[in-house]
């Protein structure tokens, strides 16, 4: 428990900052570089770093695999659902102008925020899921055999 002390302390400090930064990139993605893809990966990095330094079990306590899988699907549904809402408002699929018909530019602004949120959720989920899938497999060769 006492080895890698520096790593463990730094990780604890970093994880929160990384998540905060991910959220910054997420919500500034509409008018500046950034958005769901980048934010999702940064967010996932926070969890993966935690998992690498502490253990897979401890990160899975925070972020259980079943939740990860649901999030992957949820993000896609948020994205597709945004489009469906605009369909029901009588506009074309993903026409964000539907949300504020009097000022379509505002609607586009809101639309892209929601869609990017969906992308962010899915990318976070997918990245963490890939990490879980590979890290969670018991190796065929045990560590001693190397």
């Amino acid at each position, binding site marked *: 428990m006492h080895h890698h002390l520096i790593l463990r302390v730094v990780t604890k400090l970093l994880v929160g900052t990384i998540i905060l930064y991910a959220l910054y990139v997420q919500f500034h993605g509409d008018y500046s570089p950034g958005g769901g893809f980048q934010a999702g990966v940064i967010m996932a990095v926070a969890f993966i770093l935690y998992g690498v330094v502490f253990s897979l079990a401890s990160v899975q306590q925070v972020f259980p695999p079943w939740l990860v*899988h649901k999030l*992957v699907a*949820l993000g896609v*549904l948020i994205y597709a659902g945004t489009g*469906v809402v605009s369909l029901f408002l009588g506009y*074309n*699929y993903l*026409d964000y102008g539907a949300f504020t018909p009097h000022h*379509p530019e505002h609607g586009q602004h809101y639309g892209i925020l929601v869609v990017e949120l969906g992308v962010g959720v899915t990318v976070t989920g997918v990245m963490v899921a890939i990490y879980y899938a590979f890290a969670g497999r018991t190796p065929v060769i045990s560590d001693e055999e190397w």
Partner: protein
Amino acid sequence: MASEVTHTAATFADHLPVLQILVPFIAAPLTVLIGSRALAWPIAFVSSAIAAVIAFALLMKTMGGEVISYHLGGWAPPLGIEYRVDAANAFVLLLVCAISTIVLPFARTSVAAEIPKRQHTLFYTAYLLCFAGLLGVAVTGDAFNVFVFLEISSLSTYVLIAQGSYRDKRALTAAFDYLMMGTIGATFFVIGIGLLYMATGTLNMADIADRIAEQGSNRTVRSAFAFIVVGIGLKVAIYPLHLWLPNSYTFAPSAVTAFLAATATKVAIYVLMRFVFSVFRPDFSFANNTLEFIIIPFAILAMFAASFIAIFQSDFKRMLAYSSIAQIGYILLGIGFLTQTGLTAGISHLFNHGITKAALFMGVGALVLRTGSSFYSRLEGAGRTMPWTSAAVVIGGLSLIGVPGTAGFISKWVLVQAALEKGWWPVALLIVASSLLAVIYVWRVIETLYLKPATGDAATATEAPASMLIPLWIMAAACIYFGFDTQITIGASQTAAQGLLAGAVGMAH
């Protein structure tokens, strides 16, 4: 443009092109989110059935030669992504949806037997993604969008094929091989689109066509053509690029093979046709030469070489896989003729071969369920213990040969007509000769099922369950029905061929 203040509310019918892919595409994450094994199959089936209804409505709308254009996000093409449906797409959409809807009830029993329970929910998710991807490829009018949907369907296809590893571990290497070749093919396709974008500055297929017509042929456009044909050729399994196909089809779960064999290569052929005829146009002499001097010889080679290999197989499923490569040869031959009749033959064979192969692979699936293997030696005498399944297999086999009265005959007949029309009577003879090879490999199946004494597993086998027999017989009946009623197949193929050959001049405006 999206910012137009005057907005007329669109009706439900206007949204059909996007709903076509949206229904399975939303159903896929929904199965994961709900996470219920019991609900996964019903969701898949209902969404597939809805998609089939939409596809039928689209075909009815476009049969008269009308073209439906849908602007995604309200952004007008060529800037925005456009979904564009004419008779050719609608026909392919209907094929994919119909096959999927009929295969799914079959899949329920087959998947339950071949894949462990814990994978079922995710299996149907992957299936729906593959289905949505294939529909997307067919519906979109944007060149880069084709790539995205192609990869959605391909990636889920690799997953589906790998599911066969619970029966035979070689499914894993088959999926890996397909992944390697499929990715190289898709990447070549992207390079081609990149070069087209360089030459024309647009990604809308109709717009690219207009720009190429304006500027004429140049080196960039020619290399783009080469990259696209080779890239899609890998997905189509044009003869020398077919190496991924036999193992993938043999080791994939039966339901997956039935679905893929009838749809995936067909959609790829549609993309090839769309690019050769609508984007590059037949009068683009480079395309013309490629078809005449490269595609046609390879198509004929496929008809013979693949049929010949099919004769010497000991595994029914693998035999059918090789026969698929041969049949793709017929379709490409029709396309290569570059005439109205040839293209009609190609498109109708695409449909007829789709239903024939779906029937045959479902038949194999039913045999595998009861005898545990698709090797001829294990199926001997199954005709007596499983009469209904075997009879349907025989009908499929006859349609594969092209016996009069079956769907396969109609399209081969039109193909021979097309060859004669061009004055290429040796090609017509070759078509007939290669059909004789089909007689041999289909006869081996009939001999195995009916004439050999029942031994081993086949002797104690019982008839397949109704959930398998009904889809199987719907397909077998379709093989016969479309052998007599050519109204839908030939009619739609003719409209589609006219639309494709007319090119896309001014379609963007």
